[in-house]
């Protein structure tokens, strides 16, 4: 599977009744097996970009393609993790994670088995019967991550998936993500504000300008795989991180 954006731009009607350019135009091609991290200032259109790829937002101009087919609605094999947890308050943790399976028609016994196998990884073992209102912010985020994992998607669209997590949990889950990915070919597009995290995880780090977000830097991360947290002290790592930081500093003039 390959994704490509061609002069993609999104504008919203702004409070004054005019048009607010929110994103782009952006052109970008993402290959078969790439892990792409998106970095950019708040409000630059990262979420908007992710939503276009998820088929939830129609572009104002330009186009998003998946294997040459325009993305006009949610596509098979894509899964999105929203910036907010967006859990259903009337469903338990178990049922929230199992939701995609239920929609796909998986019988109850099977889907609960699948989800329960996932809980230790998400560190939610004893909370399968808890309701979202009984969770901490980070726990809710992990449930949302579980809801994506359970779909075993080919394209992961992750909007700040670890934003509410502490450093340790964050590392653990991102390494888990790398492992999952090493087993099958998957595209991952992930928004993050953490440069180290981006360099540690990604094959490419894309830096966007302030609103409307345009492509400012497209940094290829050529560190060897598998990667480990200890790498952040290595020279190459620091060089890449600094380069990215530099391009961020640049755009904000």
């Amino acid at each position, binding site marked *: 599977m390959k994704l490509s954006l061609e002069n993609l731009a999104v504008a*919203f*009607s702004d409070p004054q009744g005019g048009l607010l350019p929110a994103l782009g135009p952006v052109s970008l091609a993402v290959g078969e097996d790439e892990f792409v991290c998106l970095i950019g200032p708040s409000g630059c259109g990262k979420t908007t970009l992710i939503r276009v790829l998820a088929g939830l937002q*129609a*572009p*104002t*101009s330009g*186009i*998003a*393609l998946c294997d040459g087919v*325009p*993305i*006009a609605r949610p596509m098979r094999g894509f899964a999105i993790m929203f910036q907010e947890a967006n859990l259903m308050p009337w469903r338990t943790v178990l049922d929230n994670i199992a939701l995609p399976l239920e929609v796909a028609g998986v019988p109850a016994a099977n889907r609960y088995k699948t989800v329960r196998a996932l809980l230790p990884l998400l560190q939610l073992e004893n909370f399968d019967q808890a309701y979202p*209102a009984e969770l901490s912010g980070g726990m809710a985020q992990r449930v949302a991550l579980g809801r994506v994992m359970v779909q075993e998607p080919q394209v992961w669209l992750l909007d700040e998936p670890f934003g509410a997590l502490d450093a340790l949990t964050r590392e653990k889950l991102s390494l888990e993500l790398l492992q999952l990915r090493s087993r099958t070919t998957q595209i991952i597009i992930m928004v993050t504000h953490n440069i180290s995290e981006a360099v540690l995880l990604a094959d490419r780090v894309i830096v966007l300008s302030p609103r409307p977000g345009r492509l400012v830097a497209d940094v290829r991360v050529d560190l060897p795989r598998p990667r480990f947290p200890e790498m952040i002290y290595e020279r190459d790592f620091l060089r890449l991180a600094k380069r990215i930081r530099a391009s961020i500093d640049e755009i904000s003039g």
Partner: protein
Amino acid sequence: MQESSRTATAKIEKRSLSARGNTLRRLSPLATVLLLLLIWLWISDREIISPILVPPPADVAAAFADALADGSLAAHSFTTLGEMFYGLLLGVGIGLAIGYAIAKAPVLEHVLSPIIVAFQSTPIVAYAPLLIIWFGTGPASKVVTTAVIVFFPTLVNTIAGVRAVSPNLLDVMRSLDAGRWQIFRLLELPAASPVLLAGLKTSSTLAVIGAVVGEFVNPQRGLGYLVTSARNRYDTPLVYVSVLTMTAIALSLYSLVALVEWRCLSWRRRSLN
């Protein structure tokens, strides 16, 4: 490729057409009324239903002109409108107050529900004499009838609306040390307004029924009286005139609530865009 850009274009166009959309929206109820009128014309022209039961629109128009000219329609309408107004004021006011209390203290629901449901479900004929003795034969008894029927939808929707207010936002208000009234005005009222307004829609159309039923039981004047008396004189066109007037009143009230809704929920419309 074409498909997606079409979607995009459609979206942009939709926005620029919103002015025209508004006009259309405003005209569509008129279109419906016109369509109904055409169906009516057709039915009575072909005599699909006997003109004894469904008189031709022209006859009804003539009866309407007469009733307007001699001022009787206006007089009866004002009577009914007055009963409705005070009935709504009373019923909706009490419904809001008790509903809010119940939403805040759920025990109350268990204590009060037998009384409330009894009130709501007892057909008025059963207590008509009590009503006449307590409230006289004047408009008061009709106001009470209206209030009783109008009260319930307001009540249950107030309960549902206030209970659904986000506890997170309640925490925000509490952290600001807001008073009860402020919490109500700044949080609960706007948050519950979609549900409250739905209750008000039901209440406002039931108000017409309430006033008219009150007038059936104890007919003196008003549109309910006019229907009964026209029906008893086999003046079907006049029956239609009074029923259509009731419908017009109900529709106006409903539209009023819908307008308030439109204003109150402008944020939601814009957010959903």
